[in-house]
């Protein structure tokens, strides 16, 4: 009886200790910006480890479905490869092929899978199972064959934390049609497959059903990734169109992604810094 009471006292003591430490960390997080970053990074790291463990268990039981999906994707890619090889052969026969013609040139591709993803918040995020040891860098894009998923925000040794496209703080540069206007594309904040293409000048004509692509004008995503289909539009402030977009990317069924990282980013950033430095001198 006495032993049981001692055990309970230890359990309650430990629980109170943990609660008090969490309270202290919470206070500390809100009292200093350095501490806020430090605690956020630590909590992301812990979260990634915990969810990574759960994910491994979950995946073990869904291997059959995954294999089936991969087999279907493999068949589709083989078909696409054959088609591409035919096109390349025809182009080389006609002398149209140049050496620089490659898909996503200037971008490094890293396959990854999603360990955890949130979908029911205004600021959604995801955690990937690849980190800086795998070559992932912050400010890399995350894509799938169906469109874009988000942007890598913080990178740890084996995991990365990213901001989902379903995040009210994210906007990406998108192009309407093959050679249409470029504007920022943001999540509509309501549905899992809805987005809004903003700031499209009124003089640009489009038809509902036109495809929306990545513009390639940022260093985050390669150009010409299909994002979705343009829907209805409305005029904002009498100056620009705001177009509803139905995204190809279906977030509920998301698991495997590709991280795209611009290989020339350092050079471009260096040039930008050089230019801004010269402007400051003037």
């Amino acid at each position: 009886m006495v032993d049981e009471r001692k055990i309970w006292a230890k359990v309650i003591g430990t629980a109170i200790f943990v609660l008090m430490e969490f309270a202290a960390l919470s206070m500390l997080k809100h009292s200093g910006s350095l501490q806020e970053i430090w605690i956020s990074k630590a909590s992301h790291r812990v979260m990634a480890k915990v969810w990574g463990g759960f994910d491994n268990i979950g995946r073990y039981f869904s291997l059959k479905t995954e294999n089936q999906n991969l087999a279907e994707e493999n068949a589709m890619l083989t078909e696409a490869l054959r088609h591409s090889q035919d096109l390349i052969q025809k182009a080389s026969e006609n002398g149209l092929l140049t050496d620089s013609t490659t898909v996503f040139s200037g971008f490094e591709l890293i396959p990854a899978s999603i360990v955890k993803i949130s979908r029911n918040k205004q600021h959604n995020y995801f955690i990937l199972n690849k980190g800086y040891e795998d070559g992932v860098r912050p400010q890399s894009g995350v894509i799938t064959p169906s469109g874009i998923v988000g942007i890598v925000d913080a990178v740890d040794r084996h995991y990365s934390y990213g901001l989902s496209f379903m995040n009210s703080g994210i906007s990406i540069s998108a192009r309407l049609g093959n050679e249409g206007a470029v504007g920022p594309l943001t999540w509509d904040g309501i549905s899992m497959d809805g987005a809004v293409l903003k700031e499209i000048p009124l003089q640009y004509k489009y038809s509902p059903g036109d495809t929306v692509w990545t513009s390639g004008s940022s260093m985050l995503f390669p150009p010409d990734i299909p994002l979705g289909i343009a829907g209805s539009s409305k005029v904002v402030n009498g100056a620009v169109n705001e177009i509803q977009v139905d995204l190809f990317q279906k977030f509920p069924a998301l698991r495997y992604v590709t991280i795209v990282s611009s290989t020339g980013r350092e050079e471009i950033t260096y040039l930008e810094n050089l230019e801004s430095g010269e402007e400051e001198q003037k």
Partner: protein
Amino acid sequence: MKQTRFLVNFLLLLIVQICIANFFRLSQYVMLSILPAMILLIPIRHGTIPTLFIAFATGLAVDLLSDGLLGLNVLALVPVAFCRVGIIRLVFGDEIFARKEDISVPRQGLWKMSVAIIMAQALFLIIYIWADGAGTRPLWFSGIRFAASLAGGYILSLFVASILAPERTSGTRR
């Protein structure tokens, strides 16, 4: 009477710690604190749970009334309260709990008291310096800060022990 005197002394030392935190910032390498010794010297008849609450309230009072980061002293002091029984058992043995004897320099001796104070002080400083630096300070800086603060804190803690010792508060020796 004994309890009231202990409480008064504890509150006075708390004010002293607030004054140290506000007015005695000797250098960025030295952080003086008597809080770990104050928690260590709480009479052992008070178990871990009451000590945790006392540590939380004491740390919070220092954080609120001094010019620092809110939550930092709480974060570092609560583990001292949590490990207090373990430190006392390790340094002074189990007999002290059987006899329900309070710890003090005259009873346990300066050597054992110093070891206990240094252990409590070290635990407090490791967490305090680690959280205060938030991973931005180099190891050598944190190391020097830890050593200097431990030395300063140890000397101050001996004074705290002489003030909070039960012989002093009761005025008698068993």
